[in-house]
């Protein structure tokens, strides 16, 4: 398809990267939306996940809310909130945070809950309080699984942040939307490729971080609970 060779041309033309509102600018915006979203999602999701995992309570309600939250079409949320303050950034952030919270909560809760009860009992036996057990025992053991949730959330957020362009904001989605509207498909396809590449790079970086943060004793490929990834 000649459109694909045009896409390659578009991606390899330096001015497309460096010009105003070019690839670099849009990439920075896209990364900004994603980072902001993940930061907020972590602040919300981690405490909730820890609470559920540590106390073992509320998991039924939490899990079903998570399933429901995952099902919400982000586009619908964004366009509804857009009406409240057109052209603002927060509608997009809210929509994306809704997307990022479920995988992080689910993994954080599962990770805390999956800590070997023998280890927990040992800690209690050593005289640690509930809080201390959480901080010194459960958390370090949970890091790999939590990071896996963050990875999953990050990929989804990066792919879905293209939606910002639909409500006139920036990010790599601009190339997809404008490319399609202007019938410059090399831009549209190029934008999609860039989003995918960015997501893969971030995923890879987080994977390395996940490995590095895994306490050595857990690193040797021990079986991890049910695996799945999700997107919305």
């Amino acid at each position, binding site marked *: 398809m000649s459109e694909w060779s045009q896409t390659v041309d578009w991606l390899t033309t330096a001015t497309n990267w460096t010009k105003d509102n070019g690839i670099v600018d849009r990439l920075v915006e896209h990364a900004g939306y994603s980072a902001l979203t993940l930061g907020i999602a972590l602040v919300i999701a981690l405490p909730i996940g820890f609470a559920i995992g540590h106390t073992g309570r509320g998991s039924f309600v939490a899990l079903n809310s998570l399933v429901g939250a995952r099902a919400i079409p982000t586009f*619908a949320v964004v366009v509804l909130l857009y009406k409240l303050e057109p052209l603002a950034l927060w509608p997009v952030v809210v929509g994306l945070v809704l997307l990022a919270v479920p995988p992080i909560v689910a993994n954080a809760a599962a990770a805390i809950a999956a800590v070997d009860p023998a280890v927990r009992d040992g800690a209690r036996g050593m005289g640690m309080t509930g809080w201390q057990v959480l901080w010194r025992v459960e958390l370090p053991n949970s890091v790999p699984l939590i990071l896996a949730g963050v990875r999953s959330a990050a990929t989804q957020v990066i*792919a879905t942040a293209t939606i910002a362009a639909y409500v006139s904001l920036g990010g790599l989605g601009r190339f997809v939307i404008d490319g399609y509207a202007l019938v410059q498909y090399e831009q*549209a396809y190029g934008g999609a490729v860039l989003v995918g590449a960015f997501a893969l790079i971030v995923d890879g970086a987080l994977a390395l971080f996940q490995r590095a943060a895994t306490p050595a004793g857990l690193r040797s490929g021990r079986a991890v609970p*049910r695996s799945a*990834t999700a997107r919305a």
Partner: protein
Amino acid sequence: MDRPPAWSGAQFEGNADVLVHYALVHLRISGLALGLGLAVAVPIAVATYRRRTAASIVLGVTSVAYTIPSLALLLIIGAAMGSLLSDWPLVFTLAIYTLVILVRNLIEGLRAVPASSLDAAVAMGMTPTRRLLQVEFPLALPAAIAGLRIAAVSTISLVTVGGIIGRGGLGFLIQEGYRKDNPRETIAALVATVVLALAADAVVVVTGRMLTPWERTSPRVRRRRTGLAGGGETAP
């Protein structure tokens, strides 16, 4: 002349039939996508789970496909099919995403079958096919079910992307509410989508329980195992 019912008015009342109609369309698209994805995922997983390189390639390719934004993939597939005037581009797009999730889960699930079970099967004189069907598949079922849950919810949510080209089941109503400044229409369709997803999730869970009677244990153990751990996720 058989026309789909149209949303009428800025209020919720009187439009239940519209929601039901588009919910059924939505289910049809989701069902086709999930069925197609599953049908392709199983042979691929079976063919590659024992071969490291093949599996790595498959997992790598599917990861890439997964990161392409849904709208872009829909338009690409539509262009490849030559027409956006049917539900098939959307079905194929979502089947690809389903495939990605399920292949990953199936491969991991098959690989996680304990060596002891396989050894026992070999010792019993089972052929590879019987081993696959009687030992490996059943033991990989929980992983497959977990993947199917996520795929179902995710697919039902993504069907709405079709609204941009005037299709997509409940997504059509979401878009129409957006274009005609009818927030209640959008909200109703959004809620219906979530309800459908929750229902689908429940169906998959129940089907999974029926298919894995050996996992039925005391509520305490089940809560530990299928509750939180079943809902957790990893990315390879």
